[in-house]
């Protein structure tokens, strides 16, 4: 009897303890309040925190998303590479001179006027501090070889390059080239990197609160009218407030979407399937990573032999690679996806899968394959390793995390023969910088020491013209040279699935989410 009474007492204590922990709490969180059309808080989730609020230093998708809300570029880039107005209303561009006319009545977030001279100062800062600026103005136009001037009376900004370069507009449309007002420029890089500087913003939102690594709240700037007008702008009104929450785990984001704690979140893994066919949500997919095989072509490496590169291309199946990621990606016909301007869609340029032929070359060949495990734990790398093994190669696979992989492969400090390259950039010019010029040890980005004269010649032709037809013709020849030599073996994209609750809509110009197009539709 005493024993059972004690047991009851113990159970009561246990239950009370559980209740006590529950009773220290407040009311249960409800669904997000996105119901009031145009005047609501929209909650957006991301899996990574912002590394820098300085637009010139952005390094990840969350950086780009938040800085694009705070700092508006002069122009935007839409599907197929066409340009749309941003802070600039009109523009003209030749290979050596680009002139942009600013919209009337532009203001900074403190209400002061945004003048051409401030835009010039911001662009000069971008030129000096952003790694991406090299491609905006051209490697031959560094420093004072590019002049940036403003005309206060005419409201124009003019960029002149010493040598022809046709990528200025594309560069200016990037988030990194977002314009920072005088207050931000004077505050310095450290202040800008750490968070909102009062009066620095030129974009549609300004920061209200920032809890690094946890959440950010942004408020719509009253009277902001310089939204880029993409072809497929959603209906509705911008949200009054945006609450950005950081959850390191995609499953957590998916749970928060399901329970109404978030209105929009990007998912790259299988959690996205929870929302497919669910009327409460819309799912828009876009390429997140473009995967291709690239080689270390230095003497003595297997990748230096064109026959080995071709055999490796024959050994792998794009379809099988895509299936590793659930078959939801897009097979690639170049090193970027079909949304990119001037991308080759000519399948005849690709080496067809032929395992029997691959075996004749790869039998006994030793290949050190190194890839990043950032996506699906490196499952794509494992597939390529197994495909090569099946073709008789002796493969040593290294599934490194992103930092180690970047050091070993893109800085060429590791012992590697081939890699599954996860390209984030979606443009031919930017993605193509890895196949030409000096090696990392000599100050370049050509990590595989690729020597493809036809590619380099046509890359130069494509990037030095602003004529769209001439540009695309040169790009086609450049891609043909690269693909025929098997310097690149295109695989497939890994897609990001943007899941939004009903009542929230957004545009994906050029195949990537533009957070500034987020609208409350009802």
């Amino acid at each position, binding site marked *: 009897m*005493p*024993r*059972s*009474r*004690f*047991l009851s*007492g*113990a159970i009561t*204590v*246990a239950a009370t*303890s*559980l209740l*006590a*922990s*529950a009773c*220290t*709490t*407040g*009311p*249960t*969180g409800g669904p997000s309040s996105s119901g009031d059309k145009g005047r609501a808080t929209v909650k957006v989730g991301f899996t990574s*925190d912002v*590394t*820098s609020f300085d637009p010139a230093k952005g390094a990840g998708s969350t950086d780009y998303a938040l800085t694009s809300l705070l700092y508006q570029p002069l122009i935007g880039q839409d599907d197929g590479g066409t340009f749309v107005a941003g802070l600039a209303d009109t523009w003209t561009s030749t290979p050596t001179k680009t002139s942009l006319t600013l919209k009337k009545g532009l203001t900074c977030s403190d209400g002061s006027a945004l003048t051409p001279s401030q835009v010039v100062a911001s662009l000069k800062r971008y030129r000096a501090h952003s*790694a991406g600026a*090299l491609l905006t103005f051209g490697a031959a136009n560094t420093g004072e070889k590019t002049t940036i001037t403003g005309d206060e009376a005419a409201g124009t900004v003019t960029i002149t390059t010493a040598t022809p370069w046709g990528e200025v507009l594309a560069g200016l449309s990037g988030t990194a080239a977002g314009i920072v007002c005088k207050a931000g420029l004077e505050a310095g890089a450290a202040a800008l*990197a*750490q968070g909102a500087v009062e009066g620095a913003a030129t974009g549609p939102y300004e920061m209200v609160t920032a*809890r*690094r*690594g*946890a*959440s950010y709240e942004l408020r719509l700037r009253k009277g902001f009218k310089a939204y880029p007008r993409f072809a497929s702008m959603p209906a509705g009104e911008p949200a009054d407030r945006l609450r950005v*929450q950081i*959850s*390191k*785990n995609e*499953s*957590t984001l998916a*749970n*928060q979407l*399901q*329970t109404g*704690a978030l209105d929009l979140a990007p998912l790259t893994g299988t959690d996205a399937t929870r929302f497919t066919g669910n009327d409460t949500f819309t799912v828009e997919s876009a390429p997140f990573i473009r995967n291709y095989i690239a080689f270390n072509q230095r003497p003595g490496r297997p990748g230096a032999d064109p026959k080995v590169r071709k055999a490796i291309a024959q050994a792998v199946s794009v379809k099988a690679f895509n299936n590793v990621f659930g078959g939801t990606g897009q097979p690639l016909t170049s090193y970027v996806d079909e949304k990119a301007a001037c991308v080759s869609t000519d399948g005849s340029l690709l080496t067809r899968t032929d395992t029997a032929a691959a075996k004749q070359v790869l039998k006994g060949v030793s290949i050190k394959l190194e890839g990043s495990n950032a996506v699906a734990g490196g499952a794509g790398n494992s597939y390529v390793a197994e495909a090569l093994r099946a073709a008789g190669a002796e493969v040593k696979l290294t599934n490194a995390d*992103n*930092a*180690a*992989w*970047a*050091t*070993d492969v*893109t*800085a060429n*400090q590791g012992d590697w023969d081939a890699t599954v390259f996860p390209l984030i*950039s979606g443009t031919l010019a*930017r993605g193509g910088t890895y196949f030409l010029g000096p090696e*990392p040890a000599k*100050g*370049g*980005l050509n990590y595989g020491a690729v020597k493809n004269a036809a590619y380099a010649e046509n890359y130069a032709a494509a990037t030095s013209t602003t004529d769209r037809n001439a540009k695309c013709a040169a790009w086609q020849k450049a891609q043909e040279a690269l693909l025929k030599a098997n310097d690149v073996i295109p695989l497939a994209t890994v897609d990001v699935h943007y899941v939004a609750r009903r009542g929230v809509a957004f545009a994906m110009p050029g195949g990537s989410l533009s957070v500034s197009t987020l609208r409350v539709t009802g």
Partner: protein
Amino acid sequence: MAAAPAVGTAAGTGRSARLGPWGAFLVRRLVGLTAVAVTLVAGTFLMVQLIPGDPARVVAGAEATPADVELVRHDLGLDQPLLVRFGTYTSGLLRGDMGTSFQTQEPVAEIIGGRLPFTAEIALLAVLVVLGLAVPIGLAAAARGSRRTDASFTFVTGTVGATPEYIIGTLLVLGFAVELGWFPAAGAETLVSMVLPVAALVLPATCVMARIVRSEATHVLAQDYMRTARGRRLPPLRLYARHALPNLLTATLTLGGLILAGLLGGTVVVESVFAWPGIGQRVVEALLVRDYPVIQGCVLILGLLAALLNLLVDLVLALLDPRTLAGKGGR
């Protein structure tokens, strides 16, 4: 030569006598704590250097040229020899400066200051709930002592105790957040947000600790003084609370201290599952981008907290059982 240790021991014994048992105990523990701190400082510094991957390259970004990367390396001080960097780090620590994040340029002390309260909140609540649940459950299981109770107890505590926190956390979210909608799936916006992360920490730890309590209680309940007490027909609450509990606390607290220190490690995983903005989630983030100062700072603080928790347990034990004051080989 043989005389030296004897002199030393004698001197040491003399000092102990002057300090008294509590003084000697505290000195011993503080020396131990200092050794742990020094080891943590050196260990975490060296450990991060061994992680493959170049932090300068990560900070500079994918499109950075080697020249940009070298500039970043210089700015971060990573071009300095290892010993110089260690000297800079330790001298900074002595001044209370834990460095600056490579990624966000925030002072590490500020990062920890902002995150630690969140981790402390769930860890401390978890400790209280574990103690509040494990002791009565373990004691009750030992008191009941039937074969069926033992089998059920062993099965349940063995299964739950061996289940990792992230699996328990995921199941809790699916059940209580996604399906039932009783609690938020993640975040730290309301107090109710704490329930599921704390439960994920508490469940396995409670089971492990309850097994320890039960084992100790079974031993204690078989002692003659307990039979005598039962023979005097004392009320159950008084019997177990006043006679059994104090005698099983020594071993329970000793092992429990280790389990509770392990809860701090558990927060790293649980914070990730529940998007709880604590120090554990920040460590994971810092590891991925090789943010050396943040990794060092967070691991140092978590390590020191674990050491302090053990010190606290030792103090409680010493209060409950003064024999432990003498320590190993003491008198």
